[in-house]
Structures are given as structure tokens and as C-alpha cells.
């Protein structure tokens, strides 16, 4: 099958469109969740949606997406309220409140699920697919609903952009400035619940957590502005959704949800390691480079002070002695200095061990460093104090 024919496959098209919608909405709203330290709220809301799905199924009398999503949304909203109630009104910490609501709502959902399954009736198989998601079960008509909810969420975010931004970064100032912070926070939480509910069919309640957090956390590594972060998170969400959907369509037996989550996690891993400026690898490299530069300066100062202490600008310092001062091998630092023309390798008869002396340029550089030595932490302590009696 050619790629074109394969891409025109009806089911795959539907799944891909669903993945795009899900990626956009979870990336955009996830950005706010991650910035507001509410990452785990997404985890709780997605688990807590399960009883709502079952109730929606029972009320609607069948596997009808609208009813189940409405139920999921109501359950998620109730769960968010419970978390607030427990965290604010008791002495239990927020994480305990999250854990309680997550596990109890899920348990009730499991009970309801067993009730639905015990009743004779068709279509309950579609319910368990909400646990892990079943992208292939998405219908074209479902896409319209997903699209409408996505459009609504994006419109709200655009309309209240300034307010959401302020509430996320400086809620204290937002209160003082007279914004209805509580209402805005509720609105954000409600919309995150919406995003989660949308994703349930695609990736399932258990893995929807990752779709809220991963694209936003990855985007945060690359950019510093909220506008860019939201756009990039949406893009990452779409990439993860599409890649997962395509791989799953190609290899039979691989569930879409876990694949999407793994792709999203991969994006996060790459971002954490490699993003310019914030990447862990870059900061390791920068630290290594800084350590090397510091060592080079210290060795230069050591040679300079040894020479001054002996009143001989061409005093040949033995390499082993310099090593001993620094408690580490300094050969590489010395070669670097030699390459810059600041020191040179000299013999010292009758010894055969390498000796080094400063060039004129080296002394000038050392004096320049000494003048500003206070700026270099550690330079003073490592360079030896040379007084009359010592070497």
C-alpha cells in the first residue's frame, strides 16, 4: 500500500484528526496547568472521570459520546471541588487530597463499571475502552463534538488571555488588581477537565495525565514566553498524537494511547536534555568548560606567584609540584596555557621532570587576573601563598 493510499484510509483519517484536536487542546490548556503547579490535578481529573462516564452511559442508555462526555465532565468538576474542599477545610495536605479523590472516584467508577457490565445489554465493551483508550472507535460524528469543544476552549483562552496569564504567574497581584482570580482559576480548571474528557476516548483515563503535562513541560524548555510556550505545546501535542496514531495504525495490536504517551515522553526527554539554554546536557557542558577555565587561571596564578616569591620572573616550576598544589593533574591546563603562549616548557638541569616558566605575556595576564581576582571565586584559595620560607 502506498503512503498516499494508506493516508486516505477512512479510519486512520478520523483518528488523525482526533489526535490533532486532542494535541492542540491538551497542549494549550496543559501549559496553564503546568505553570500553575496543577500538573497532578490533570491526573486526578482524568481518573475521576470514570464514574461520570459510567453514569453518562446509564443515563443515555447506550454508548453515546455526548452523554458520556457530559457525565465525565460533571464527575471531573465534582472531583476538583472535593480536592479544594479537603485541601482547604482539613489539615490534610494537597497531595493527600489529590490521592484521596483520585482513588476513591476511580473505585466508585470501577464499581459502576461492574454494574454496567453485569446488566445484559450491548455496547458495554465500549466502556472499558475508556480505560486505555481506543482511537479506532472514534466516529466521524465524534469529531464534530471534539472540534466544537476545542474551538470553545481556544476561544475562551484567547478572550481571557491577559487574565489567565496574570493569574498563572502572579495570582497575588491579580487579586490586588481587582481580577476575579477565583473565577479565573475555576475557569482554567474546568477547561482542563474539558481537555481531559476529550482525550479519554483517544488515550484513556489512565494515560491522559501525560497528555496534559508532557507537551507543556517540553515546550517550557525551549521558550521563555507564554505565547510561544502555548503554541509550541500545541505543536508537540499534535506531533505526539499524530505519530502515535500512525504507528498504532501500522502495527496491529499496539494500542494508540500508550504509543501517544511514549512519543510525548520522548519529546520531553529530548527537550530536557537538549533544549538550548535550559537543556541539562548544555549546562553540564557549560559547567565542564567553566571548571576547565577556572583551573587554567589557577595554574597561571600559581606559576606567577611562585616566580614572584622567588624574585625570578623566569623561575622554572616543576610540574609535579604544581600538581601537588592543586591536588590534581595540571598537565592539560599547562598545555592550554602553552597553546596561548602564556607559559613555556623549559628544561631544568640536571632534572628530567618537566618544568614550566611564564612568558612575559603570561605574567601580564596573571597581573591582570590578580587585579580582578576578587571576581573569580576560588582563584585565591587554590593559588598558593608564596612566602620566604616555602618552596
Amino acid at each position: 500500500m502506498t503512503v498516499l493510499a494508506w493516508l486516505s484510509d477512512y479510519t486512520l483519517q478520523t483518528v488523525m484528526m482526533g489526535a490533532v484536536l486532542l494535541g492542540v487542546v491538551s497542549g494549550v490548556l496543559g501549559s496553564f496547568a503546568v505553570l500553575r503547579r496543577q500538573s497532578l490535578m490533570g491526573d486526578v481529573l482524568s481518573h475521576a472521570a470514570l464514574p461520570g462516564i459510567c453514569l453518562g452511559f446509564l443515563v443515555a442508555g447506550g454508548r453515546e459520546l455526548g452523554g458520556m462526555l457530559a457525565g465525565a465532565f460533571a464527575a471531573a468538576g465534582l472531583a476538583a471541588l472535593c480536592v479544594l474542599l479537603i485541601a482547604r477545610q482539613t489539615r490534610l495536605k494537597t497531595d493527600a487530597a489529590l490521592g484521596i479523590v483520585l482513588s476513591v472516584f476511580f473505585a466508585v467508577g470501577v464499581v459502576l463499571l461492574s454494574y454496567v457490565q453485569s446488566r445484559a445489554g450491548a455496547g458495554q465493551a465500549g466502556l472499558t475502552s475508556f480505560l486505555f483508550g481506543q482511537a479506532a472507535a472514534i466516529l466521524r460524528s465524534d469529531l464534530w463534538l471534539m472540534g466544537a469543544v476545542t474551538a470553545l476552549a481556544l476561544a475562551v483562552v484567547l478572550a481571557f488571555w491577559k487574565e489567565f496569564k496574570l493569574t498563572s504567574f502572579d495570582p497575588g497581584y491579580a487579586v490586588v488588581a481587582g481580577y476575579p482570580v477565583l473565577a479565573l482559576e475555576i475557569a482554567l480548571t474546568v477547561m482542563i477537565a474539558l481537555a481531559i474528557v476529550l482525550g479519554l476516548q483517544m488515550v484513556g483515563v489512565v494515560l491522559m495525565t501525560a497528555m496534559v503535562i508532557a507537551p507543556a513541560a517540553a515546550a517550557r524548555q525551549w521558550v521563555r514566553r507564554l505565547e510561544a510556550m502555548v503554541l509550541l505545546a500545541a505543536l508537540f501535542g499534535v506531533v505526539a498524537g499524530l505519530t502515535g496514531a500512525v504507528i498504532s495504525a501500522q502495527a496491529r495490536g499496539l494500542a494508540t494511547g500508550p504509543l501517544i504517551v511514549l512519543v510525548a515522553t520522548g519529546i520531553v526527554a529530548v527537550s530536557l536534555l537538549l533544549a538550548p539554554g535550559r537543556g541539562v546536557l548544555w549546562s553540564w557542558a557549560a559547567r565542564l568548560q567553566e571548571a576547565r577555565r577556572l583551573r587554567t587561571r589557577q595554574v597561571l596564578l600559581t606559576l606567577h606567584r611562585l616566580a614572584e616569591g622567588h624574585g625570578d620572573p623566569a623561575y622554572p616550576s616543576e610540574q609535579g609540584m604544581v600538581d601537588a598544589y592543586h591536588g590534581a593533574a595540571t598537565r592539560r591546563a599547562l598545555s592550554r596555557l602553552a597553546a596561548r603562549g602564556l607559559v613555556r616548557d623549559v628544561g631544568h638541569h640536571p632534572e628530567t621532570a618537566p618544568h614550566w616558566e611564564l612568558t612575559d605575556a603570561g605574567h601580564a595576564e596573571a597581573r591582570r587576573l590578580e587585579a580582578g581576582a576578587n571576581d573569580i571565586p576560588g582563584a585565591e584559595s587554590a593559588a598558593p601563598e608564596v612566602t620566604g620560607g616555602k618552596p
Partner: protein
Amino acid sequence: MTPLLFNVILDDLALMIIATGALVGVAGALPGMFLVLRGSAMLTDAISHSILLGIFAAWWLTGNLGGPLQLLGAALAGLAAVALIEIVARSQRVRMDAAIGLVFPAFFALGVLLISLFARDVHLDEDAVLLGEIGFIWLDMVTLAGLELPRALVTIGALALVNAAFVALFYKELKLSVFDRALAGALGFLPGMLFYVLLALTSVTAVAAFDAVGVILFIAFVIVPPATALLLTDRLALAIVLACLLGVAAAISGYLLADIWNLTIGGMMASMTGAFFALALLAGPRHGLVARQLARLRRRRDNDCLSLLAHLRNHEGTAGAAEENTAAALEADLRWGGERRHRVILTALDRGLITRKGETLRLTRRGRAEIDALLPGRMPPRRG
């Protein structure tokens, strides 16, 4: 088979299921109490999801599902997830909550994917992973000391003993680490190490409970009973005992309700932990919402009473006393509406703090003593 014999076997089975559930409650609540107190409850969520990958890996490497080696091997995945979360959070690129939410779904997704690829025929299907099969524990029996018992019951029972021994042996150290980590560190109790042992025990317990209740319902047994106990008492030792009892009570009531309504047993047991929590949240003796609301009302009434006493004491013996120390004046001076004023005056009368003569209110000796004790030296000496 006679009906009687059938009943005995059935009862025996019910007993085994309840015992397994109760032991999951006990084994989970013991480390759970300290995790909840430390503010690390959501790590349980991460651990219990992550062990799925460990269970698969242990099965894949050894070709066997239930054994001590598999138990420990699978538990390593939970610890690995916690370690990875710490590494990600320490890199300061994302915050702790996001780190948790990034790591465990990845472990879980990988576990689900690998199981669906390689372990289709083993009883590792997706429903069992999430929900457990406590009703089917009798499928896998072992013989112990002449008794034929379900393997899940034996494993979780052993874990409950290990957890109880750990908490009993290191009670003092755990308590101090949770309430004053800095002091525990200064005294050389290694709070970080203790915490990792605690997480390791949670992880092993999660693997042991996996057969019975699945990975998500396990969270309920770890977090909810300790949180409930903390709403009921202020003493740690009592709270631990209470949490274990709540777990046992949830297992018993959950089984009975599931039996009556023909619903899933594990889910019902976990739901019952939530029901007990809701009950404690509403009706707890001191920390419950109702008790707190009542205490708030009582405090407000006490304060109103004191305001009334202060007002009367202020004007007592002055020229304006006849005009100020009346019920009507309270509306203007203290801005108390009719209903509130009425209630305060009645309360003060009931408590014997004031007397009423016509329109005039007078302090009794007790009322005067009470307000003078509260505001010594602030009141002008009583004239006349």
C-alpha cells in the same frame, strides 16, 4: 454436594477474600500513614502505576509470575520511578508535581504496550491490571502449614507482617523524620534513607496487592484510611491502629455490599474506604466539617457575649447608663440586627452574666468578673 457443604466452602471462600482485602488494608495503611504525613501521598500513585512495567519485566525475565524473586524484581520498577522523579525534579527543569506526572505515565504506557505485545496469554490482561481479581484468588492456591490458602493471601499477609515489623522497629525514627526532618537528620537518623525504605516497602506491597486489587485501587488502601485516621485523632500511634482498622472495616463492608448488589469486590472495598473518609470528613469529632462549623458558631457567640459585657461595663455607673445599657442601644452601638441581638441577650441571660429589668440590662457579679478578667485595668472603676 449437599447444600450445607456448599455453604461451608462458600463461607470459607468469603472469609479468604475478606481476609485478603483486610490484609491489603493493613499492609497499605502502615507505610501509607507516613507517606501522607510527609506530603508524598502522590508518590504512591506513581509507584503503583510503575510496578506494571516491573511485573512485566519480572515475568519476561523469569517466565514466572508469582514468586518472592518476581515480587522484589517488580518492586524495583516502583523504586526506579521514584528515583527518576527525584532526578528530574532535582534538575530544576520541571517542578516536583510535573516530574511525577511525566515519569509514571511513561512507565505505565510502556508496561501496557509490552504486555499487549508479549504477554497476551498470561493473565496480565488490562482489566486485571487496573481492577484486580480478588474474587478469583482461589484460582492460585498454595499449601502452608497444612492449610490450603490463596497465594495472594499468603503474600500480602507476609508483607503486612514485614511492614508492621518495620514500623514497630523504627517507630521513633519514622515519627521524628516525618514531623521534624531537620532534627532527625541532625540526630543521625538518616531520614532520606528511611524514606526510601518506606517507598520500597510500599512498592513491594503494591506488587503483592496487585493480584487482588489492581494498581489503582491499591492507592485507595494506602492513602485514604491513614487520611481518615488523621481526621479522627491527633496521636500518631492511635492513628496508625485506626487506619489499619479502617482498612479492615472497608474490606468487610465492601465485601458484604458487593455480595448483596453483585458488584465488583475490589472496587467496592476501595469505595468503602472513601465512604469512611466522607463520614469522618463530615462528622469527625474535632476536625470534621460539622464539628468545625459548630465550633466556629460557638466561638462567635462567645465573642458576641464578651462584646455585650464590655459594652455594659463601659457604661456602667455613668450618666448615660440608663440610655446605653438597653437592648435598643445595642443596635446603634454594636450594629447588631434584631435577630443577633436577641440571641446574644438570651445567651448572656442563660449563662447568668446579665440580668434584665424592664429595658435595662445589668451585669451580674459573674459577668463583671468575667469581663474584668479579660480586660484588666481597661475599665473605669465602678462608681456608686
